[in-house]
């Protein structure tokens, strides 16, 4: 195998593929990235048997072939290459050595033959859905944090993506909170076509990787019975689909609140961030933050842990009954970190009923949590 390519292109492709490379595996081959050179391009693949990522870059290929190089090392080497161009060439001999040259740098490193590298699952170009990559990325960012990381509950560790002609929605529920993000198609844009009506349950793990490789342009999605394929121009990601029934979440989002507070997003976020400074490793999950209103314009945020206390007053507008309840601070902060809006509302149903956090304007986001009880 022998090819020459652009160092920057290669680095981007390596970093993408690396995200899907297995960390702990009994198959050493999966710890590497597959480089397959043929016909004017090099295909780079990382695959941990759950998620596969492939990037294709243009190259000047003088001898085609396929090799696997350790992913960490390849990323480190590529990052440090001195010249905008890089050449790869395997040498014949009894050991499997590939030479990597860039400027005056000349590496000789081990590789494994690529013939046995597993093939990414084939997904026919069916059940198509096209969304702008930026919008898909934003949907993921506003929901994936609310997925469970407990793999034993697949329905709770994935996000549901649902599309109708003029909007797309993504929902995640980990059992204790719900995050819903919505995107409205720009119907004023002549080039924008109505979306297909689809519903996919995608593993949170795949979405976390996908989020990092999304860029500009459109994302095309296709599904087979078991897999989903994301086509992103020169990159693609394949993942298993979650085979489980998603919770019927419509009934979970409460209406008819008893109290409503309106608050500046940054102000509330930094208050809660300050309160969390008091958490030690062992407090992480068990020190609640307390919300209590005083009159119509003050919210007292109170935190007590084994290390100390924080008591801070935040300016708000309150309509309805006074509020006094406690939350897992992590649940609140994670939502506040992903809301782009300047002001948010929190709607309460008493001290134990569900609370909804949403932007003051529009319906692009809703987040439901339950107060803690003692």
């Amino acid at each position: 195998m022998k090819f020459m390519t652009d160092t920057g292109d290669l680095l981007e492709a390596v970093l993408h593929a690396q995200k899907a490379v297995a960390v702990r595996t009994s198959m050493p081959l999966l710890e590497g990235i597959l480089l397959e050179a043929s016909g004017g391009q090099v295909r780079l693949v990382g695959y941990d048997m759950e998620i596969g990522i492939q990037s294709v870059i243009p190259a000047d290929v003088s001898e085609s072939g396929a090799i696997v190089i350790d992913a960490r090392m390849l990323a480190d080497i590529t990052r440090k290459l001195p010249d905008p161009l890089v050449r790869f060439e395997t040498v014949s001999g009894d050991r499997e050595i590939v030479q990597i040259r860039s400027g005056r740098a000349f590496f000789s490193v081990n590789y494994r033959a690529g013939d046995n590298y597993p093939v990414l699952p084939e997904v026919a170009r069916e059940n198509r859905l096209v969304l702008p990559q930026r919008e898909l990325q934003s949907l993921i960012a506003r929901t994936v944090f609310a997925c469970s990381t407990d793999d034993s509950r697949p329905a709770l560790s994935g996000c549901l993506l649902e599309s109708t002609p003029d909007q797309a929605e993504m929902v995640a529920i980990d059992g204790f909170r719900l995050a819903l993000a919505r995107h409205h198609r720009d119907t004023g844009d002549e080039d924008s076509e109505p979306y297909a009506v689809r519903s996919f349950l995608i593993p949170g793990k795949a979405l976390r990787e996908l989020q990092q490789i999304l860029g500009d342009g459109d994302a095309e999605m296709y599904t087979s019975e078991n897999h989903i394929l994301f086509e992103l121009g020169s990159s693609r990601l394949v993942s298993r689909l979650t085979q489980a029934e998603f919770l019927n979440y419509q009934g979970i989002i409460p209406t008819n609140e008893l109290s409503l507070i309106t608050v500046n997003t940054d102000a509330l976020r930094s208050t809660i961030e300050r309160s969390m400074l008091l958490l030690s490793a062992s407090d992480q999950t068990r020190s609640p933050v307390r919300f209590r209103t005083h009159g119509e314009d003050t919210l007292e945020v109170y935190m007590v842990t084994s290390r100390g206390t924080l008591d801070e007053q935040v300016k708000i507008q309150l309509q309805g009954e006074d509020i006094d309840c406690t939350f897992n601070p992590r649940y609140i902060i994670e939502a506040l970190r992903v809301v782009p809006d300047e002001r948010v509302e929190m709607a309460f149903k008493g001290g134990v009923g569900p609370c909804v956090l949403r932007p003051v304007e529009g319906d692009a986001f809703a987040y439901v949590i339950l107060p803690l009880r003692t």
Partner: protein
Amino acid sequence: MSRIQKLDQLTASRIAAGEVVERPASVIRELCDNALDAGATVIRVALEQGGIRSIRVQDDGRGMDAADARLAFEPHATSKITQIEDLDSLATMGFRGEALPAIAAVARVTLQTREQGAAGGFELRLTGGEIVAERELGMPEGTTVLVEDLFHEMPARFKFLRSDRAESQRALDAVTRLALARPDVSFRFDADGKTQLHTPGDNRLESVAYAVYGDAVAKRLQYFRYDDPDGIVQIEGLLGEPGLTRRSRSWETFVINRRPVQVPALLRAVEDAWQGRLMRGEFPFALLHLTLPPELIDVNVHPQKLELRFWNDSQVYRTVRSAVGGALEAMTYAGLERAAAETDAAESDTTAAAGTPPLSGSPRMAAEHGTPAPPELPDLPGTRSMPAGVRSADSEHAPLPQPSYAPAPGRPVQLRLHDVVAADEGAPADSPATEPPTLQARDRLLPRLLEARFRGVLFDTYLILEEGDDFFLVDQHAAHEKILYEQLLAAAAEEAEEGRGGIWIRQPCLAPLPLSLTAARRAVLDARLDLFEALGYAFAFGPDNEVSLSAVPAAAVAEPVASLLELLDDLEEEQPAPDTGTRHEERLLNFATHACKAAIKAHDHLHEQEVAALLEQLVSLAEPFQCPHGRPILIRGSLAELERRFRRSV
């Protein structure tokens, strides 16, 4: 017509008998008690069909003359006390004079006895409590009681008996308890001709444990002894090494003044001493012999004498807890010392280098199990197929006046815990019994850890420390876990005190999380619902056995279902103990799980300052040698050992 009439003699004594003998095991227990009281050194128990057909108990004790033999079956006839005050200084098992008449009331009994020094023996046969035949016969010294057709005349009680096997098992358990209580007596137990237990009677706890529990368990036991400085309580026993645990309390045996007892305070004391070394639902091995002045205990509580009331529960609790705690600490320390000790001992043994000398040693009992063949009783005339045996020399097995067993030679010196424990709470410094006070095991080892130089990390997991001619390997994850665990315990105590209860805050579920539980898990859940609710779980029960979670402890939101299932499985085999504050214990042990999650993972890289901080915290712990799951935190090796392995020295 008057309705009330006096019960006839037999009916009255049968009702009374129910108090004393309820099943074959209790008959055996009473007969063995009598044999022990008669000074037997060899006791042989044989039963057929679970004891329902027949029970035979044969001893080599002092026997009775004809007059006493007849009298023994009269109610309240006893040779053991004459007035009520005698109870306060009781050294015998029996004292009521009830057992033999009670047994004779519910079975056919044959008594054969020859008083020591007498020319011949004497036999009595009783049916329905009445003597029906008497004769003289030739027989060895001692007494044999044969009990046949137990409860035959009492269908109501007969019905309560379980299968032969179950009854036989209970009988074996009863004899086992006595054997564990009396290592100076050789017990043999045969059921339907098969020997199921045979103890040597060489007055060594290790030998009895070997006979009862087998080699695999016995070699993981450690002898210890403790004399309280006030000279009131003396404790000795065998403790299992930390990994040796069970899901039930069947390995916890307590003996007071050579009497097997069940005292909740003792269970609690032992398990509390183990706290932090056991996983949820695990119970340790502990065989404890306590010697107390007889006037301090009250045996007259239960007709079967199984329970025993202390004059002062809490003092006994404190003493036992600190004695066992000290012993465990020394065992852990001894485990660390072992590697060096073993290799030093094998100094000239070059083959040791070719093998794999362990770096970490767990405490092993040094005693060899080449116990002498247990003594045998001779056959009796007119008995069924008992194999002939030769009576062993009596003097060898003479019972000792008091249970003052000297530690057997060959026990490792550092395991004589006297010094270790004597330094514990409240012991007067000038106690005459103690040698010049030595430092506790941990105090000797821990300063060295702080002095030690940090030499690096193996596999991103084990910290290497060097001090003098020794090196230590510290499992960073286990160490951190233990630090967090102790911090959590402290926080929990504080929160409980302030009434904050923050640890038990619950997070309700947005939608019920359905659980699919196996029948076994479901049974545990139903049985221990209050425990789970106390921990912060809430459940919704639907039709068709459906269960779902409606709230979980706030600390368990990351893996709500997994943490619950884990807890269910751990509880599955545990048997609830009487009165040992189980809920509290469960809560504490539950912390270990959380501590584990928060702890530094095995493969996290630590910087040198972090290592120093970790060690400093570690050595300040109450129990720095084992993680909450009972695994060791550090092991020790020596330069000598390395030199030997590299053949730099021989």
